[in-house]
């Protein structure tokens, strides 16, 4: 097991280095650069000589390999440099925005899982056929809701009309309610769809028929026998959905005026703020790798067959 983990960590480091290098090269390939975009901006009203002097001071015209080695060296020593747009150290930006996004994303994901489970159970256990069909069509509705529109609608209804929840200057918990719902609904849809389909599939398996024949109630069968087996593919999808979660966070954060990695990414990409983008790319790769590693490690917990296979040769 420990050998497996070491291997996976090595793999992760490789992924990180590739992500860093690829993002560096891609950013260099884009027309212009952050310094040009910032100082050529008419709002500063700088003349050509002044801009040239600043470019020189920032060293943005030095050879590519030199810039790469310097960036990599800085990264390895934990110096992420400065955000050109925000004019603060990148570490400051990350420290402000990471926890906010982590909270929004984890709460959003938790709620998405709850909604998906709720929909899956209801669609299996609902007493009437037409009701089951209706519930099964909810995920298709959810997945087609644009996050942007959903956020604005929730704000308009619950904050501006009903005045139940404040979105301007809210309390810490209050401020999370609507964004978490906005983020969770579209994410819950694919989870629910997969779960419903897997439950249907597993339900046709012989062991389920046996359990029923033994006289187990439908909810007992579902909970003890079906769900456990239906969860595995869902877990895989959950790992992949993590990426989507970050993408949804960009829009949610903009609509609700929250700070977070989403908004920071959007701004940094818009202004080609290289050092910030690189830090975000490496961070995202890191969390993606970590989440998928956790998912892999969770498989044996849910499926004893995998546990036995891994344990046997050692």
């Amino acid at each position, binding site marked *: 097991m420990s050998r497996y983990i070491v291997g996976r960590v090595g793999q992760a480091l490789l992924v990180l280095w590739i992500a860093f290098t690829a993002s560096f090269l891609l950013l260099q390939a884009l027309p212009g650069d952050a310094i040009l975009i910032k100082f050529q901006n008419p709002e500063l009203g700088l003349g*050509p000589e*002044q801009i040239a002097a600043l470019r020189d001071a920032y060293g943005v015209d030095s050879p590519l390999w030199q810039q790469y080695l310097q960036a990599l060296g800085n990264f390895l020593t934990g110096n992420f440099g400065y955000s050109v747009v925000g004019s603060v150290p990148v570490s400051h930006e990350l420290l402000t925005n990471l926890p906010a996004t982590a909270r929004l994303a984890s709460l959003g994901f938790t709620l998405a899982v709850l909604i998906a489970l709720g929909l899956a159970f209801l669609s299996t256990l609902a007493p009437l056929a037409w009701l089951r069909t209706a519930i099964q069509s909810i995920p298709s509705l959810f997945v087609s809701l644009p996050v942007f529109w959903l956020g604005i609608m929730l704000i308009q209804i619950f904050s501006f009309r009903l005045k139940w929840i404040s979105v301007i200057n809210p309390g810490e918990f209050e401020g999370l309610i609507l964004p978490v719902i906005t983020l969770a609904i579209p994410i819950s849809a694919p989870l629910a769809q997969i779960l419903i389909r897997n439950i249907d599939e597993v339900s046709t398996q012989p062991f389920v028929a046996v359990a029923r024949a033994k006289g187990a109630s439908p909810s007992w069968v579902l909970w003890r026998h079906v769900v456990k087996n239906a969860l595995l593919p869902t877990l895989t999808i959950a790992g992949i959905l993590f990426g989507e979660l970050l993408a949804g966070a960009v829009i949610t954060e903009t609509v609700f005026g929250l700070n977070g990695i989403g908004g920071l990414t959007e701004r940094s990409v818009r202004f080609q703020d290289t050092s910030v983008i690189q830090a975000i790319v490496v961070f995202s790769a890191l969390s993606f790798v970590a989440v998928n590693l956790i998912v892999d490690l969770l498989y044996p917990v849910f499926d004893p067959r995998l546990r036995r296979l891994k344990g046997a040769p050692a």
Partner: protein
Amino acid sequence: MISIRRRTLGALAALLLAGTIISPSFAQDAPVQGGTLIYLEQQAHTNLYPPAGGFYPNGGVLNQITDKLTYQNPQTLEIEPWLAESWEVNDTATEYTFKLRPGITFSDGTPLDAKAVAVNYDTFGLGNKELKYPVSEVINNYDHAEVVDDLTFKFHFKHPSPGFLQGTAVIGSGIVSPATLALPYDELGDATKIVGSGPFVVESETLGKELNLKVREDYNWGPLKFEHQGRAYLDGIKYLITPEDSVRIGGLLSGQADIIRQIQAYDEPQVNDAGFEIFAPNTRGVNNSIAFRPDNPLVADLKVRQALTLATNRQEIVDTLFSANYPVATSVISQHAAGYVDESAKLVFDQDKAKALFAEAGWTPGADGILEKAGQKLDLTVYVSLPQPQNEGVLQLVAQQWAQVGVKLNVLAGDAGSRTLDQLDPLKTPVTVAMVGRADPDVIKSGFYPKNRDWLLQKGGSSDKVQTFVDDKLNGLLEGLASETDRAKRLAIAGEIQGYVLDQAYIIPFFEEPQAFATAPYVHGLGFEAVGRPSFYNVWLTR
């Protein structure tokens, strides 16, 4: 009369019915101290180095936490004392001597004295390569500052700099503590590091989301001619970054916020209908316009530029997209700007005349209706300018108007990098969006001079892609504008430039650009400096 009486009686009856007797109150006239103002801003501030105050979100913060040497009265545009109680200018406008008011301190307790001001202006005027500070756009020909005594200092200039006095009053000339300017430029996006002498002090900040200012209790050096002296009425200001237009307006109308910046013209009616007030202070500079790059052969011919001007229906732009707060431009600069001359006769809309001019210049409609000359189509490109209100809508409308006379205008959004690079290439961008706010005739030079913004892209200016285009006459006039010390002569030059630029059809001014704010009915005393940045010093609340 009758209706008023009836209403009064009705109100009295309502009061009696409610069982309360309210004595006539004059609370409306006497400012009340206290309260925190909730201000919804569209964008987060970036770098708070004072000369970066041209960016509205930056200026909106800097204007509360820093003071300037002088104050420009937004009504009269006269320069009045602020931190400096008096000043003298020599005849050639190469030496400015200022005397500070005594007892002024920065919020960290250090004195705001001649030495501190010298550090500020040496940085603004010369930049600082080591710490990466750029120079300030408003300070021309700066040489150095000389400290005479604790409260007296003298600025020396290499050449006459008559616009400098006004330059000491602009948003980009706020004085900060020398300790702030000892930090690298790259760290000044952190508002908590900006130490000024203003009526408010930065209390805390969540980058990109929220900024809290608190009142400075011992503040006692507002502009000398203000009736209100001493501390600000508000206890604090909370800036909340709210990028979504509908959320800002909904937040204001639902009572969750007190003031918002940036209301599009199409949202004005719902704000007015709800009894909220809209402020649209004029930015008093070069109007919202498009400028041509004559180095591009397609627009090198004066007749073509004149024809395009004639083909532009500016009234339609304002009627379709804007409101009464956006008056149609009548010259290069705003009618509220110093040196303004009405040139509306040169800006008429006449499609027939436009077509005739194109024909005279040798352009004839091709098979697809687009004008052609020697196998080349009159196909132009312009990039949308994001800070300008509804700029994409404006440009699309111009594209439709030009299409009616056979000219194709491509309106591009583009990524920031491509936009910045293409803007430097006259072949890629024969047309560019132009606008700059500043209440001094120097603003015209800021826009056109090759060593400044260089809208027309002249050879030897900001771009090395320019082949030949230079306008020595224009540059000579601009240099004269920046150095003429006699005010009347200077304004005459400003007038001459407006006429010349329009005669050459270098620029098509659309409308006078305001900065639009809306406030809740209980917000009083909101003021604006000369180019539309809000000042909260006199604001008080009756919530």
